[in-house]
């Protein structure tokens, strides 16, 4: 099976800080991969490079046959819009939009009409258990509810790959498990690949495979250790 995502020798610096130094990683289609590691190890940077949000200084990122690091910003934006869904630690919902509009707006950016986007958004909010919060704004939602809306937003576009950067980091353990269960359940149901960044071993245990980033270098965690 050819890999869906492949990073080779990726290096990324921020000013004088070397975040990634020759990181390499291969992810197959339909896999759920956890990227773990201590704070500041470079795991979020790796995820952002894999998702085409950041461009590495050196190395290659492949998505299928496409060389991601060689695409310009517009092409990477189109790819993220069409093929990727992204969930962040603090939801990152637009504070002025209602929960339904937050989900719908992603679909509208993909070209859906408002009525169609709203209907799909409501459907996804129901699926993640926050259908009754559709008309509320992020400030009126609990952390868990906001994160469920963020999950609905990421999945509503039916992405091939879901990137989740510490999706449960701001939640208590019960809410965190619920959100993770929803995210992985919906993604597996659709056969989507999930790349999950976490520093929590319990969260990493949900993944098919775990890799650790330490000082900007990726190493595989043997199944027996997990």
């Amino acid at each position, binding site marked *: 099976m050819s890999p869906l995502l492949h990073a080779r020798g990726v290096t990324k610096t*921020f000013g004088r800080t070397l975040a990634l130094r020759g990181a390499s990683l291969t992810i197959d289609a339909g896999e759920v991969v956890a990227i773990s590691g201590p704070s500041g190890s470079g795991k*979020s*940077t790796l995820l*952002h490079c894999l*998702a085409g*949000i*950041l461009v590495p200084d050196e190395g290659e990122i492949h998505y299928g046959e496409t060389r991601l690091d060689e695409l310009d*910003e*517009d092409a990477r*934006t*189109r*790819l*993220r*819009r*069409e093929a*990727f*869904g*992204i969930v*962040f*630690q*603090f939801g*990152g*919902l*637009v*504070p*002025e*939009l209602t929960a339904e*509009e937050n989900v719908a*707006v*992603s679909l*509208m*950016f*993909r070209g859906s*009409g*408002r009525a169609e986007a709203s209907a799909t958004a409501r459907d996804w909010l129901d699926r993640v258990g926050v259908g009754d919060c559709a008309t509320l*704004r992020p*400030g009126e939602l609990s952390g868990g509810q906001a994160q469920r809306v963020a999950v609905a*937003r*990421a999945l509503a576009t039916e992405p091939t790959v879901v990137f989740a*950067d*510490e999706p449960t*980091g701001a939640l208590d353990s019960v809410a965190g498990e619920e959100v993770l269960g929803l995210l992985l359940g919906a993604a597996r149901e659709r056969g989507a690949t999930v790349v999950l960044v976490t520093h929590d071993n319990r969260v990493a245990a949900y993944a098919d495979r775990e890799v650790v980033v330490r000082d900007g270098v990726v190493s595989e965690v043997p199944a027996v250790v997990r």
Partner: protein
Amino acid sequence: MPFDIAAMLARGTSRAERRRRRLLACCAALTTFLLLGAVNLMMIRGTEQTDWAGLVAEEGLRPGTALALVLLVIPVLALLHQSGRVAQATQERRLAALRLAGATPGDVRRLAAVEAARIGAAGAVIGGIAYVCAQRAAMAALGVRDTGRYAIALWVVPFVLVLVVAAAAAVSLLVSRHVVTSPLHVARRSTRPRPRRAALIPLAAGVALMMVGTFVQWLDLGISLLFLGAVATLVGVMTGSGRLVLEAARLTARRARSPETLLAARALEADPRATGRTMAVVGLVVAFGTGAGVIEWDVYHNASTADAPIGSFWLVSFGLTYAALLFALLVAVAALVVHRAEALLENGRSMAVLAASGAPVASLRRAAVRQTLIAATPVCAVAALATLLGMAPELATGPNPVMAAWTAGRALLMVALAVAAAAAVTAASGRLLSRAAAPERLRTE
């Protein structure tokens, strides 16, 4: 205590903070300059015959000129207010750290006021010196002989400086009313009431008074009513802009078909007061410009009827009016840019998440421009319409299609210019948005 700590905080600041301080100092300097001009005019006695400097030389016209200078302070105050709000956002960590160090919310507010007063004082001194020097240079260039009659009395200057410094501190305290500083974060109170419909009452009353004023011929009552109506209309534009922005945003959000329009309308709906305040100044420019158009018509019409050239007094007056309108518009759009910066500081992360999720930054920029269009169009249109309605009886007394076309066309032109200026400035500030939506904003500490 606040003075010592404010002095400590003044050292070691970021580039953004230094830029904000320069902006505050500039506002204080401009306010001082304009107020000194107004006070100076009111202190001149007697009339001197002049062809072109009537607004300054004629005793009966000086109060009006002084009032115009004071009115020009309004856009500067709007900019000052906006800069104060952006200060609260940029100082977030610093203020939270002070709370953590034991400062009470009152201490933090006082500190901010002391800092504003300190920067205001620096700006006011610069403005004062600039006024005295500029006046002397202007009098020398124009060959004014009796300079003592026109030069500002130096003993007045400190009073104006104190007034400006007090205003800077007051604006800071006013802005911090809606900010909650806790040891963990700084937040703006979200429970502020929405602008009410009643805020439009002065506008309606002003139009009605102007209309009645143009009919009343008894003694000076007509003129007084007309003046009162004009003042009420201007006040109405100031108080009612927030409500107009809210209504326009609600209507647009309901009908939005594109994500850009939806984002723009909802952003306005969430905080109509802040945008309304900035747009109010743009609306005032439109109202003044429309009113000036009616007077211009009178002057041109009378000159052509009498087959005489337009007097230099009027030409100079029109030129000064245009200059004042341009100045007010420039300051208002500068306040708009500061408002954009503030909004992006507060919501930049959600913009970065949208961009990361595949929303093109160009779309987000379009949303920003649409936000300005949705807010500016109704405010400017209503300001122009209110002025035209107030003048309607006068326009209707001598049915003259050319006059009606001129004034309506002039009003339309003012609306178009103001809206276009606001939209162009928002579009030009797109770099702020690109920076706010940059992937670096996604990094968590």
